């Protein structure tokens, strides 16, 4: 039996602080070392396991590095065309309103090809949870410019650095969605350090609560690193994120409404 599946006997008188959530399968993650996809997968799985929602949750897998989430989550799952996850999630939710559904999408999937689908799902106030992994680059296809790539950032398709004159400006998804009356809860978090990771987990929990209570659309944007295509070690990537992405994409709650169309009190 492979070592990672071995059951180890825990001594009497000890309690778990952190264990593998059962909403994950046993499959080791195939992500690059230090990639925060794994961290975020784990947080989502923990919330689902802790709230007992895994039994009735569908994961909608994107095209991108995270295409494999249908292998990593021990949930009913569906792998869908690039960018279309919010539309597929809409179909699933309209057909099975008794269940929960979340999408998990990268820069290209959500902010590029799929931007219409997420905007309209939010405008309609679909009771789905969209998890947006923003690492300012296209990972799976080997490091091209993304709609979220920063001005001056070098990628394989902006080898001289993103030039505003020809490549335009990056898109701030949370700010964009916050203008939609149909969106209930929109928050941007980072996963750069323990405090930020705890905040990210709270945001995930809030998103699923909003959905479970039928209160409409939520999106959590996770500022993430891509050590491989940024060409930096994980620790240096975190520094780069802090210095460059945080100013462009400030973390915070961008929309928090009791229900679609109604602002939260104070």
């Amino acid at each position: 039996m492979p070592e990672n599946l071995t059951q180890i006997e825990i001594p009497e008188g000890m309690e778990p602080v952190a264990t593998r959530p059962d909403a994950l399968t046993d499959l080791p993650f195939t992500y690059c070392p230090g990639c925060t996809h794994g961290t975020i997968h784990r947080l989502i799985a923990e919330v689902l396991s802790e709230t007992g929602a895994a039994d009735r949750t569908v994961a909608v897998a994107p095209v991108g590095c995270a295409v494999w989430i249908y292998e990593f989550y021990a949930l009913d799952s569906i792998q869908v065309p690039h960018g279309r996850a919010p539309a597929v999630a809409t179909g699933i939710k309209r057909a099975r309103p008794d269940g929960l559904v979340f999408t998990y999408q990268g820069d290209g999937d959500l902010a590029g090809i799929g931007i219409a689908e997420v905007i309209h799902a939010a405008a309609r106030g679909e009771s789905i949870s969209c998890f947006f992994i923003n690492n300012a680059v296209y990972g799976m296809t080997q490091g091209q410019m993304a709609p979220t790539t920063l001005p001056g950032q070098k990628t394989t398709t902006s080898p001289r650095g993103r030039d505003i004159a020809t490549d335009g400006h990056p898109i701030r998804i949370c700010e964009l969605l916050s203008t939609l009356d149909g969106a209930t809860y929109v928050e941007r978090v980072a996963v750069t350090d323990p405090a930020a990771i705890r905040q990210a987990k709270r945001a995930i929990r809030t998103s699923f609560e909003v959905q479970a209570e039928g209160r409409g659309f939520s999106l959590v944007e996770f500022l993430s690193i891509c050590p491989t295509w940024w060409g930096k070690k994980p620790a240096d990537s975190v520094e780069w994120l802090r210095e460059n992405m945080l100013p462009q994409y400030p973390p915070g709650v961008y929309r928090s409404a009791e229900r679609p169309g109604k602002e939260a009190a104070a």
Partner: protein
Amino acid sequence: MKGNEAAAEGAIAGGCRHFFGYPITPQNEIPEYMALHMPDVGGVYLQAESEVAAINMVFGAAATGARVMTSSSGPGISLMQEALSYMVGARVPCLVVNVCRGGPGLGNIGTSQSDYWLATRGAGHGDGRCITFAPATLQEQYDLCRESFEVAERYRHPVMVLSEAALGQMMEPVIVQPRGEPPRPELAWAIGGERHGRKRRVINSLYAQPPDLEAQNLELAELYQQVRREQTRWVEVGDEDPEVMIVAYGIPARCSETAMERAAEHGIRARLVRPVSLFPFPHEPIRRWSAIAPHTLVVEASIGQMVDDVRTAVGDQSEVSLLSVLGGLLTTPERIAAEIRRIVGR
């Protein structure tokens, strides 16, 4: 009722309770009918932001085992190709109604049959193709839409009903069935809702390891063989000893029937073989009659798409001619009759 309404009502009678679509001429009566009637049967109507979104909503809802349809016309059907390919690869059933208009490009809103290749040669990229049915009357349109969900579920595959603008817009009497909930089979692959501890299921078309994809492709090839054995449909009318075999579907087929009567006044014996399934294509009866009729006339509202399939069936047993009706124009029996007389030589 109107043809588009017949399609929608047929689908409801067939158990459709989820419609996702987007407006495009000449099929807007379908989403409008669904918007009006879906709530009456406890169903879901949703106007999507595009055909791309609509077909992906179909994908999601159909993956949960619901009976789902969408409808569109040429440009919208083009937009739906990617998700249709995913549904073929992931083995998810659905109904798509294409009310064909003039093309290519924006074309016009006239009637045509120029999506024959799109329907029968592809469900998007890869080795998929829609199981395609073509009505010629509104009754047939209603019946095909009603039956198609069962067909789609049996093969776990998208079904396209290839209609055309003229059929969608015309009015004819239709005998309708009650709208009750048809019996549903247990679906061992559907996702969503409470699992109650059952093993998780995955709807997926990605097979990264070539041997795995090969196995899937072989399954699909086998499936299409089964579809050929079980779903080939056609109608024949006319003489038992024809000089001319006419092959046509949809409105051109109806005009051809009238044209045959005109031609009979000049002593010309003709037989119409009207495909009702376009994929699987009825090669066998066409091959059989081409051995008897020295002339074969294909009448279609395109520059020549179905004619390729007819030539495959006919080989060199019969001389094949094509009468194209183009530009969104409606065919006329007079035109077809003139063509019959021209090729027979009297």
